């Protein structure tokens, strides 16, 4: 990322921080020629569209804020899969660094900082933006002393996917309001609670609640009392303690009405007449014990609850409704038994009329039969042929034989799509009288024409559909489920019913499992990963890494046993599972490379004050690498390991308080000529001898670091002497 030219406008200079969600870089805005801070969303979120849109929305909301105590947002953008926010760059420190370095702060300073935070919150709240993550890390103090609050509303973006309360969240949980810890409606007063904690920490140097896990801390916010500030630090005026006690009330109703109200209190709290004001009391001090009740939260929670309660009853109702419907349905199925006997038809629209006709006919036939039976008792020689069409074979035989008639054997059997198997389709004589014992020919349905299902496994989907349509099967009767498989896309993998089964083309349902080809998955970026991690990952993802495909070569840039580059598939390329990967792995520095110990001895610009030191170096591993900037208050030695090779020379350049001090060049052949060091002295506040003399004369007064070094130097000299 460093060196990257974002949107052809922001040149990324160095990384200055990072949290769980984003990394922060210092950058140069080429267009407006100013320093900016660029917050870049971490890679794992870039495909989570929901998250991205929340992130952008919150950033855009926060961009609407314009206030001297709020870090301004200049730009929100995206370049390929880099999502970023460009913000005001604040030269200075964050409040956390200051607290770590020198808490408890002076009361005046702490109150002044809290006032400015309040001012920022007041402005944000007026714009309906709740910060939600007020903590010292988000409060920047510029070198001019101005307080700037950053990251408004961003905390809200990261709430939908599953997260753990470890790592980066630990910092925040100390400042969570009870309602935030509980997870219900955080509002303006939640920010005031968090500010109360920050103020507590500034004036006492302690956190009010701590515990071994984020959860135990969250629970303490909800139910525990904290040590009152004046117990920890008796120098705190009562008026300031009162502000902390009021803003840190567990019940939001007991806190300040608004950031403005808290700010007003902060403004006057250090006036002499207020310093010894009485300690604040709260009407419902029983509430201290009964904090669990938290009326306001409860009320809304109960409200929530009622809502959800309704939803749930609704759900149950719906569920039991469906149950009832399906019950009724099955009852219907049972009453209409005739339906059961007929296989399902593809066109069911006229089924019902047919049944009604059939049933009516059967009924009429029965009536007629009864009628003729009655007639029979008068006439004997001729009998009326009963109507048996629609009867089952068995019933038809019975009716005919009861009428004294015979059935011509064998009966004709015909396939029929409409008449269920075993039912009489036609009879040779009907509605006439015949001699007793006459023969009647019957045509009986053999049911629909069944066909044997072929095997379609390994055929292609399109050919299969065509073949089945030729059999008279509609496409709607076919169901295809697509799965990843190594066979070409469109290949049939399974079929139900299986081959050889007799099917009725009119109503059969055939389901197939079809290959959609091998699964394509993105190749991970293995560069700089350690070989053992790369192995685990490739195996897990289903890629193949064979031993002969791992080659080793020396590298200046990549540490030993880490991946230099990967072959056969680029990072993020979509490839098939089972793809073979080749890896080029570092075998460490080339044999001719030499480690070389360089030392920078540097003093502050003025002895006794502090200076910021930056060291930039180039060597065989690369150009313009930078050590972490550090602030020094006395003479220190900063060791630096350089890697040298015969082709490149190394350089070390040192900047103190933004002023270039010195640059040194080291060549490969210099290695044999002993160690090198760079000495950058500072100014003495009072006139003194040369720095070298100074080191000796004032050695005892200097810090341990330098003392130790001097001792070494002296012993070196002694060693030299003995050698001589």
């Amino acid at each position: 990322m460093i060196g990257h030219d974002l949107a052809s406008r922001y040149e990324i200079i160095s990384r200055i921080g990072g949290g769980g969600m984003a990394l922060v870089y210092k950058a140069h805005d080429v267009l407006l020629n100013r320093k900016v801070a660029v917050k870049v969303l971490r890679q794992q979120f870039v495909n989570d569209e929901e998250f991205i849109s929340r992130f952008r929305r919150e950033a855009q909301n926060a961009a609407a804020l314009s206030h001297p105590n709020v870090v301004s947002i200049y730009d929100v953008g995206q370049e390929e899969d880099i999502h970023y926010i460009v913000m005001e760059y604040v030269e200075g420190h964050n409040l956390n660094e200051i607290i770590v370095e020198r808490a408890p702060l002076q009361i005046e300073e702490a109150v002044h900082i809290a006032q400015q935070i309040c001012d920022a919150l007041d402005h944000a709240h007026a714009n309906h933006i709740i910060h939600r993550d007020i903590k010292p890390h988000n409060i920047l103090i510029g070198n001019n002393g101005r307080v700037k609050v950053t990251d408004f509303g961003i905390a809200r973006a990261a709430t939908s996917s599953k997260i753990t309360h470890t790592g980066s969240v630990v910092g925040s949980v100390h400042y969570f309001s009870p309602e935030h810890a509980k997870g219900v409606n955080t509002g303006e007063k939640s920010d005031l609670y968090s500010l109360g904690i920050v103020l507590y920490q500034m004036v006492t140097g302690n956190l009010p609640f701590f515990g071994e896990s984020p959860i135990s801390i969250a629970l303490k916010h909800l139910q525990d009392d904290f040590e009152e500030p004046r117990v920890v630090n008796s120098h705190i005026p009562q008026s300031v303690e009162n502000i902390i006690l009021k803003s840190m009330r567990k019940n939001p109703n007991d806190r300040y009405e608004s950031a403005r109200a808290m700010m007003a209190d902060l403004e006057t709290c250090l006036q002499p007449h207020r310093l010894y004001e009485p300690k604040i009391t709260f009407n419902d001090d029983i509430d201290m014990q009964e904090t669990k009740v938290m009326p306001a939260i409860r009320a809304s929670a109960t409200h929530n609850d009622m809502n959800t309660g309704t939803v749930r009853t609704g759900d149950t109702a719906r569920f039991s409704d469906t149950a009832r419907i399906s019950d009724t349905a099955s009852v219907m199925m049972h009453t209409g038994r005739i339906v059961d006997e007929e296989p399902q038809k593809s066109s069911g629209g006229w089924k019902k009329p047919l049944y009604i006709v059939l049933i009516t006919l059967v009924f009429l036939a029965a009536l007629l039969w009864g009628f003729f039976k009655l007639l029979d008792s008068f006439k004997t020689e001729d009998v009326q042929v009963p109507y048996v069409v629609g009867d089952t074979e068995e019933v038809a035989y019975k009716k005919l034989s009861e009428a004294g008639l015979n059935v011509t054997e064998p009966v004709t059997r015909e396939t029929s799509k409409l008449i269920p198997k075993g039912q009489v389709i036609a009879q040779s004589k009907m509605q006439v009288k015949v001699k007793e014992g006459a023969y009647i020919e019957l045509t009986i349905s053999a049911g629909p024409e069944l066909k044997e299902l072929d095997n379609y496994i390994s055929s292609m989907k399109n050919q299969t559909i065509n073949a089945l349509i030729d059999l008279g099967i509609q496409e709607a009767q076919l169901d295809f489920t697509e799965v990843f498989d190594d066979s070409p896309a469109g290949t049939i993998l399974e079929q139900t019913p299986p081959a050889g089964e007799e099917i009725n083309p009119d109503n059969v349902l055939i389901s197939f499992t079809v290959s959609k080809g091998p699964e394509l998955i993105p190749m991970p970026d293995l560069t700089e990963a350690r070989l053992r991690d790369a192995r685990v990952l490739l195996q897990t993802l289903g890629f193949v890494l064979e031993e002969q495909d791992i080659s080793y070569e020396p590298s200046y840039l990549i540490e030993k046993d880490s991946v230099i580059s990967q072959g056969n598939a680029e990072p993020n390329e979509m490839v098939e599972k089972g793809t073979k990967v080749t890896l080029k792995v570092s075998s460490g520095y080339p044999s001719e490379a030499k480690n070389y110990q360089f030392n920078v001895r540097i003093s502050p610009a003025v002895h006794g004050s502090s200076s910021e030191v930056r060291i930039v170096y180039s060597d065989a591993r690369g150009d313009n690498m930078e050590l972490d900037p550090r602030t020094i208050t006395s003479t220190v030695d900063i060791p630096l390991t350089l890697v040298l090779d015969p082709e490149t020379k190394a350089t070390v350049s040192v900047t103190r308080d933004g002023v270039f001090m010195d640059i040194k060049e080291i060549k490969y052949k210099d290695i044999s000529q002993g160690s090198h060091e760079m000495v950058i002295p500072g100014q003495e506040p009072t006139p003194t001898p040369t720095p070298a003399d100074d080191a000796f004369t004032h050695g005892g007064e200097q810090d341990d670091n330098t003392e130790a070094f001097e001792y070494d130097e002296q012993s070196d000299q002694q060693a030299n002497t003995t050698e001589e």
Partner: protein
Amino acid sequence: MLMVNRSDIGRIRQVNEDSSLTGSINDQLTFAIVADGMGGHQAGDVASQVAVEAFQRILQQHDEISNWTVEDAKRLMRIAIRQANEEIYRLSKHMTQYHNMGTTIVAALFIQSLVVIGHVGDSRAYRINEEKLELLTEDHSLVNALVKSGQLTAEEAEHHPRKNVLTRAIGTDDDVEVDVRVIEWNKQDLLLLCSDGLSNRVSEEQLHQTIVSSQSLQQRADQLIELALHAGGEDNITLVLCDMNDCSDRREES
């Protein structure tokens, strides 16, 4: 014993970050595992896969043991889950694209009439019979901690906006505490392992009714997925349903 393993991406997500596996080692030790990954695209899915594979690999490495005791199984459960933790943690530390990834795990090892359940996170195990449905695991989540401390009622917890916050997960720290318990098994009991895509969406009554219904085990599992999809399907849904009473051959479905 019959086990059915089902996973569905749901209606909203673009990636299925859940992984699950059932199987047995040497036809001796049967196991089932469900993992629900987190950490975004190409990280959550990797985390849950690494967890499942590491778990299986550790079991396979112990395949020479022939007479499993409950103590062995408990120990193995811890080793396997902690190994998964170590592997995921290492990947997330050393490769920026996997920064902060993690996963939940709920796993079962079956030993005669006992089941060893191990879990971390908010994936759950239930024991179900005609009479009742019983939750065997305690979610490692903020909401559950609040319920246990009396800050929330069970009803409030059910629709809490911060249900997604876990207090323990695999792969987010260099070591992890694993909850392991042993359950006595009756022949009529069924075991359900599932990700919160099911347990958050489908009420316990519905789970119970569906699981004790008379359909085949596969149909019951499919119906559970359907219920969760019907209830919104906001999350990936994964479940393993085990019927120890089913005397058909040991087999796995997927």
